[in-house]
Every structure is written in C-alpha cells, then in structure tokens.
C-alpha cells in the first residue's frame, strides 16, 4: 500500500531515538501515566499483521470537561490527527465513521480492546482533553490492540485557541517515534494570493493586488503577511521558518523583500541595485540566490542575506532565472533560455560545472528535493498548459506527476521530500495543491481567490 517501508535497522535506530526523545520530554508531564512507565515504551513499534500495512484508528478524544470549547477541541484534535497520520501514508487509517458505535473509553486506561480487534485495528490512539487554568491539557496514547499495551504517550498543555496544533504535534512525534519519519504536520505553506480583492493603486487598468500569505500545511489558519497594495509573489521560506523572502513591487519595480514574520520587521537586502526578483534562501539560510537585471539582462546572482558580497553566477545574452539550491548548498539548478527554449541547468555555487538537466520543450522553476531523494521537480510544457515532472539527478530518469488537468506550475518540495505543493487551475481558478512524489494523495489546499507560487517551510 505504501512506498516507504522501513528497514529493521532504521527501526532499531528509531527505538533508540524514541527513547531519547521520551526521556527528554516525559519529565514535562504533570501526571505520568499510572500503569505504563515511560521507560517501558522503549522499542515498542506498531506493525501490521503478517507484513500488511498497519491499521490505525483515531476515535474522538474523551472530553474530561463538559464545556463546549473543550468538547469541540476533543473532536477537532481527533479529526485532525487522523488527517495528519493519513497524509504520510505510513498507516492505513480506518475511516472514522466505521467506529462511531464503539463506546469511548471511560478513562484513558480502559480501552475496549475486543471492539477494536473486531474492527481489525492494529493500533488505536486514545486521548483526553481537559480544561485547565491556562487553557487545555491534552493526553494522547497509542495502544497496540493485539498486545493490549500502550506503545507511546504524550501529554501537552497550552492555549485552547488552536486545538489543531495538538494534533499536528502528536502526529509528528508519533511518526518520529514509530517510523523514524519527519512528518510535515507542523510545517507551513506560503503563497501569493489576490483573495483580499484590493486593486493596485496608480494604474488606469484594473489590476488585483497580490499579497503573501502563510497557512498550515493543510491550508488551515491562513494569515496575510504583506500589506502594500501591489504585486507580492514568489515567497520563499528561510530554513528557520521565521522569515519569508519574496518579490515585491511596492516601489513600482520588482525587488527582494524579507519579512521576519514573528518579529514584524522587514529587510531590503539589495539596496535598490537594479531590479531583483525570485529570491531563494540557501539551505543554511546565510545566502540568497536571485535574478536581477542590474547588468542589463536577467542573470543569476548570489548574495549574503544582508545584501553583501553579491556574486554574478551567469553571463549569457539569453535569460537566466529561477534558481534553487542543492541540499548541500554547493550547486544551483536554474532555468536558462540559452539553448533557444527554457531548460533546467545545474551550476556550481562557484560558477563552475555548468550542465543541462532537462530535455523538454519548455522547463522552468526547478526545485531540488531534500535528501535522501536526489531529485529535481520542475514545470514542463506538455501541451497547451504545463505539468509537474520529477527528474532523478543520478539517473536522469523523468516521471510525470500531473497529467494535463488544467495547467500545473511552480512545484515546491515538502521538507521531508515526500510531497510537493504546486499551483493548478484544475479546479477553475489558480489554487494551491499538494501531491505525493508518486503522484498520489492530491489535495486542494486553497479555495479563496487566486493563489500561486507556493513554498513549503522547513
């Protein structure tokens, strides 16, 4: 069912890692679970029967407080946790409506194992939510239904304002503990949108403002991060997830802006040297590659994040643009029109070792996958519109991920390399979608206005 089987050695490593994580995090618990001591969880990995995919159920959490907020949080957390776990396809998630009849566990320790066994569940996540002075307290445990034991437990407390965050946190930690997998449940997407329906000022044509937004990986909690009534496009996350660099027309021409979204500050690193666009952070966050016309033609440059030490990477009378760093930061893939059509090339950060990668009629917006997948995803012209393709750097083998439903552009990898976000017009207007690297698990992330040029946080 899934493509990401985990070797035994990785599992052993996961057990050790999990034990470290548990040891580090369990002391924060206010009340340790009475029966399952944290130490006893070490090395307990949930598996399916006879090599089958592990079947997991996430029933509604038990609300230990009767107020509406806590009751709703209990349902939201279980729904979102089910979605988060389903997203990575490591577990077969049993549909929630098939176990509505199973009574909730009266306490977190009293699990009706027989009922879950009848449903064919290998594991079940049971949890409670309780109102406390500071917000809510959430306790979650993964039980092995066959062995009738708790494998993994977490207790969280914090604000009741965003219950989804508890589910996202549990999902990421459960994936880490059970599958040595870095989940994406707490990652975010940034993209450009015209959803606020303002018009650009200072032009006689009617032109819609595009501003930069941030949302959870599943599209929830969208937040606007620019307000300048102009064109703000191609946002790119800094590796620490605290800043977004983007192309802004706030001065009338494209230039690179960096918004520090948690500090509420902005930077303009290029100091108005020519026009500059399509910024991308290096994997260490210290450099920014971008396109500039400062020498009279669109060429590629790299600068330090503060704008110092600008280096020109390309020198060709045709267009050079759309850079992406390799995971090690030593190479840059980009688009050049030097062969007569836009194609993807790779060049060393020192300007050496130029080579062409793509063999398409038109290819642009390469995005280099994180390790261990040494792949480049890009936009390829496949007909009247575009589709997303993925090419292995090692073998050159190319596979197509979308197939002519609307036009599909601007792919961006998730930090674990298992998913891509991209723009598609398949649902009418331009919207952000995500899809797995095998082309499955397509999801529409945005629905309001037109949305484009997504980028996935680390």
């Amino acid at each position, binding site marked *: 069912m899934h493509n990401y089987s985990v070797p035994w050695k990785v599992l052993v490593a996961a057990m050790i890692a999990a034990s470290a994580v548990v040891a580090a995090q369990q002391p924060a618990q206010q009340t340790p679970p009475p029966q399952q001591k944290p130490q006893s969880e070490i090395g307990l990995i949930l598996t399916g029967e006879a090599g089958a995919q592990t079947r997991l159920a996430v029933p509604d959490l038990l609300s230990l407080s009767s107020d509406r907020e806590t009751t709703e949080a209990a349902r939201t957390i279980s729904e979102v946790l089910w979605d988060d776990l389903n997203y990575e396809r490591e577990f077969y998630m049993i549909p929630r409506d098939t176990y509505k009849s199973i009574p909730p566990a009266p306490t977190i320790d009293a699990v009706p194992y027989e009922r879950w066994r009848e449903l064919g569940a290998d594991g079940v996540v049971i949890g409670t939510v309780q109102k406390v002075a500071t917000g809510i307290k959430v306790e979650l445990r993964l039980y092995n239904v066959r062995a009738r034991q708790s494998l993994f437990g977490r207790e969280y407390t914090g604000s009741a304002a965003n219950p989804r965050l508890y589910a996202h946190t549990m999902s990421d930690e459960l994936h880490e503990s059970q599958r040595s997998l870095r989940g994406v449940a707490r990652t975010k997407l940034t993209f450009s949108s015209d959803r606020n329906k303002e018009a650009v000022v200072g032009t006689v*044509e009617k032109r819609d403002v595009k501003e930069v937004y941030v949302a959870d990986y599943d599209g929830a909690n969208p937040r606007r991060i620019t307000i300048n009534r102009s064109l703000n496009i191609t946002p790119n996350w800094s590796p620490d997830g605290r800043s977004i660099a983007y*192309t802004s027309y706030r001065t009338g021409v494209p230039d690179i802006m960096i918004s520090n979204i948690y500090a509420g500050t902005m930077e303009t690193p290029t100091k108005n040297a020519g026009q500059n666009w399509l910024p991308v952070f290096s994997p260490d966050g210290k450099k920014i590659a971008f396109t500039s016309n400062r020498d009279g033609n669109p060429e590629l440059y790299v600068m330090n994040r503060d704008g110092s030490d600008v280096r020109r990477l390309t020198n060709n009378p045709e267009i050079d643009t759309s850079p992406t760093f390799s995971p090690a930061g030593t190479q840059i893939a980009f688009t050049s029109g030097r062969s007569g059509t836009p194609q993807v090339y790779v060049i060393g950060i020192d300007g050496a070792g130029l080579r062409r990668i793509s063999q398409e009629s038109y290819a642009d917006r390469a995005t280099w996958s994180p390790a261990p997948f040494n792949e480049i995803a890009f936009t390829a012209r496949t007909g009247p519109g575009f589709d997303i393709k993925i090419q292995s750097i090692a073998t050159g083998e190319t596979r197509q991920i979308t197939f002519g439903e609307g036009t599909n552009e601007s792919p961006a990898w998730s930090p674990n390399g298992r998913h891509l976000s991209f723009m598609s017009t398949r649902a009418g207007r331009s919207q952000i979608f995500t899809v797995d690297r095998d082309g499955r698990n397509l999801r529409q992330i945005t629905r309001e206005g037109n949305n484009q040029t997504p980028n996935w946080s680390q």
Partner: protein
Amino acid sequence: MRRDAKAVLVLVLLMTVVVAGCKKGGKPPVARPMPPPMVDPSSTTPTPPPGPPRPVSEPVIVPPMPAEDTIGSKSLDDLNRDSPLRPLFFELDSSEVSAAGQQVLQANAAVLKKYPNMQITIEGHCDERGTAEYNLALGERRALAAKNYLVSLGIGADKVKTVSYGKEFPFDAGHNDAAWANNRRAHFVITAK
C-alpha cells in the same frame, strides 16, 4: 417702405401734439413732472425713425478642435487611458521586436520627441502559456527590447523605465489565441509630461 412711411407719420403727429402742449398755458407748473426728453427741443428736424427691434444675441464660441497639444491639458490618468503611445506585440516565447513593432516604436518615438518632458515606463507583459517565473524575465526582456529600440531612435535612456509584470496582469482574461496575442506586449505608461 410702407411700414417706414407709417412710422414717420405717427412720429410727426406725436411731435405736433407735444409742441402744441408746450406753447399753450402761461401758468408755471408746480411740481409738474418733467416731460420725458423724447425730442431734442433745439432740433428742428425730426429724429430719424428707430429701426426694427434689435436682435439680442452674443457671439457663439466655436467649439475647440481637438488640438494637437491635448497632452498638455490632460491628467496623466486620462492620458494613459487613451494613450498617444501604442503598445507593441510579440510572438510566443519571444522578445524580438517585429517590423510592425518597429513602426509602433517609431511613432511612439515621434511623440516622445515632440514632448521632451515626457517620462515613460514600458511594462513587459506575457501570456499564460509561459510559466509565472520565466515570464518575469521574458517580460523584462520585452520591455528592454522596446526601450533599446527607442534609444536607438534618439530617445534618452533616462526618459524610459522598464518593469516586467510577467503574466500577473493580463489585459485579456481569455484563454485563446486572440487573448494570448493581446497579452504578449510592451505597454507604455506615461509617468510625467
């Protein structure tokens, strides 16, 4: 003629009555209103008869012809709404100025030479058949190609700015050949005059 003769007769009769009235009576009039000085007493000859009712009118202002210097009087927005500078269009994936494009630029250059204070921005636009990212560079190349041609015609480079909008602001929202052709353009915006 007959009407004139009648008028003269009426006047003569009236004057006879007035003159007769003046000569009659020896008592000085008290608080008698002055007779209207209809007739100059010193004049022995009758005043010429008045003409027909005067026509009341004033000269009609001739509506101005659309003069050549409307540029001086229009606001920048009005000017750009009906611009004297025409756009030029490009082939798919191309930033090459065609022969037709050169003619447009020559006409635009003539306007710019006539109004030496005019400052312009050339916007480069692309159709949706290119990608969002590559189109930013392609639009820049289109705007630059138009600018370079204008400069070759003697227009000062300092008068001409360029900006690329890629495919972000299409002029035609359609998804067909006509819309695409209309959207592949260098568009001229007057920023000062």
